[in-house]
């Protein structure tokens, strides 16, 4: 492989007017583990902002600092203009938070959970009903069922309702769709879209790249560091090389063959296709496809297909992780 092309770095931090979340140089360690290191970003009012990355990336720690549950070792963070260390109580009544784990009472009914969280935040179900109605109406037929007996998708909707019932000014959702089926995930993101359109600022984390694409901007996080912050499309287009999708069987042999190709920069499995990046950035795409097919045929793979594709957010993320590890 040739020397790696460098992915364009982020522009300097710009803080929009009235930014509901501003984070500068945040650092947090647990013993020898660095959970967050020099994390900086700002969220614009009404934005749907995604924290994207694998487990252990520091997303949950970041949420816990923003919701005043943890204190950072270095750096500052403000939520709704209030410092997360100094103004604990000023923040607490104004944010909605959905922690990563299923965080409702399984032995209480749907309605009891909702009423409880409303009371805890000093309000009532009736007062917050119109805001949560689009979500709650879907689970209202089951309002007497115990929360523990709900399906994964309905649990998420109930948790979201509980986080919204006190009309928060900003919503923090830590991996809200983990462990939920694909249809419910899509429905959940449709709900988030609706909430965003009503003007609510939402910070959401996810390990799924398809969900990241539905955010307005995302921060790619790995091992406590932010690798890039941008709109999902813009992050994809930062990918520095020509990219091709390659099909063929047997798959394992195809990976071996492509990796052995003299101009290969990277070969990554993506579902049932492979993403191949060519090290020659100016070589015509048709020529690359022809050379690739000839090469794999010469290695015994007769049924192969290749085409140039536009890089997505995940391609950039994998390349960035490679750079960070190097």
């Amino acid at each position, binding site marked *: 492989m040739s020397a790696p092309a460098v992915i364009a770095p982020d522009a300097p931090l710009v803080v929009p007017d009235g930014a509901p979340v501003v984070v500068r140089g945040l650092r947090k360690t647990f013993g020898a583990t660095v959970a967050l290191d020099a994390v900086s970003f700002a969220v614009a009012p009404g934005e749907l902002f995604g924290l994207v990355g694998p487990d252990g990336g520091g997303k949950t720690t970041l949420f*816990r600092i923003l*919701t*005043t*549950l*943890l*204190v950072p070792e270095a750096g500052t963070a403000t939520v709704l203009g209030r410092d997360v260390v100094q103004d*604990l*109580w000023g923040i*607490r*009544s104004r*944010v909605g*938070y959905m*922690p*990563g*784990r*299923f*965080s*409702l*009472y*399984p*032995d*209480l009914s749907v309605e*009891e959970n909702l*009423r*409880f*969280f409303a*009371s*805890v*935040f*000093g*309000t009532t179900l009736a007062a917050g009903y119109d805001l949560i109605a689009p979500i709650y109406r879907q689970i209202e037929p089951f309002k007497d069922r115990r929360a523990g007996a709900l399906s994964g998708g309905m649990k998420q909707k109930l948790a979201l309702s*509980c*986080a919204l019932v006190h009309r928060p000014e900003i919503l923090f959702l830590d991996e809200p769709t983990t462990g939920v089926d694909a249809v419910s995930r899509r429905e959940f993101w449709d709900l988030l879209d609706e909430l965003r359109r009503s003007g609510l600022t939402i910070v959401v984390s996810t390990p799924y790249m398809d969900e990241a694409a539905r955010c307005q901007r995302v921060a790619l996080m790995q091992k406590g560091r932010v690798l890039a912050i941008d709109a999902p499309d813009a992050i994809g287009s930062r990918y520095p090389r020509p990219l091709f999708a390659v099909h063929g069987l047997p798959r394992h042999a195809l990976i071996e063959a492509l990796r052995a190709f003299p101009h290969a920069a990277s070969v990554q499995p993506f579902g049932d296709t492979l993403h191949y990046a060519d090290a020659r950035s100016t070589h015509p795409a048709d020529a690359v496809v022809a050379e690739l097919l000839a090469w794999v045929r010469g290695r015994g793979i007769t049924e192969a297909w290749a085409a140039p594709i536009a890089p997505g957010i995940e391609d950039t993320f994998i390349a960035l992780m490679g750079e960070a590890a190097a």
Partner: protein
Amino acid sequence: MRVRDRLQALRAFVTKEARHILRDRQTLTILLLMPLAQVVLFGFAIRTDVNEIRFAVVDPAPDAASLGLRARFAGTDRFRTVATVPTVAALEPLFRRGDVEVALVVPRGLGDALRDGTPARLQLITDASNPNTGTTMQTYAGAVIQQWQAGLPGTRGAVRIEPQVRMRFNPTLESVNLFVPGLIALVLTLVSAQMTAISLSREKERGTMEILLVSPLHPWQIILGKVAPYLLLAFANVVTALVAAWLVFDVPFRGSLVLLLAASTLYALVGLALGVFIAAVTDSQRAAMTGSMLGTMLPSTLLSGMIFPIASLPLPLQVLSNIVPARWFIVIVRGVMLKGAGVVHLWQELAVLTLMLVVLLAVATRSFKARLA
């Protein structure tokens, strides 16, 4: 939040907590039936040995013979003479305070009676509110008198000394009388310390604690909301244990019920504070359960005087027993139930428990943070 909203939030919390308790039928059944089962199970006594028996002598007219007998008692290391009084009536407050465990009443003219060969009546009074030690102490005292009698010069066959034994406070020597106070302590420890610790750490495990902390609820609201329903449950348990003891075993209740319930509340609060502390320093339900077992149940059983009298523990454990709340609580319950003791007699124990509560509350609220770490 306004005060009205705060109170409403607290009420919602207590309601929610009560629902948790009421819907976990199995645990609830166990908790409610436990005092009953315990009272029946602990109907048996464990025989124990005693040392350093607090001993008093009533010797209205000392002579050579009575002094010789007293010297015998002074010479053994089992008895420690703490008082010598002129009348039997003077013993009453000593027993009531627990200052004296065994008293010997010497009749007037013991020497004359021995010389003349007329029957002499020696009376032994034993505090048998603890039946194990009561019988043992009585046997020891009888043995000392027999040795003294055997060692009398020129013993005449006509002399008859009859050690009369009168048990005080627990005349039937029912061992269950001893155990009921211990059981009340044990059940209260379980319900208050262990259940609170488990219930708080369950919130941590479920992730609901994160939401509660992010909410405008203050830690005191969370603690109070958690603790209140368990306090009620603890009350129910005390009453069950008392009624079961009374119905099944005829255990007497001589003192003030109000005082006992007040002391139980005090003790339950100590346990609840301990439970909050245990939950704060452990991460999982399992750790909380183990922690509360080691930190509360074991000492409450073994170092409280419930099964083994404090006096027969090795010295380091005797010292350690002073920081076990159950040790003080059991003295109060035994005093109230079996002796009819009042605040006048028990103020020291009550004061110790109050001090423990203040310290533990300070520690618990400090350890229960408004943040995760």
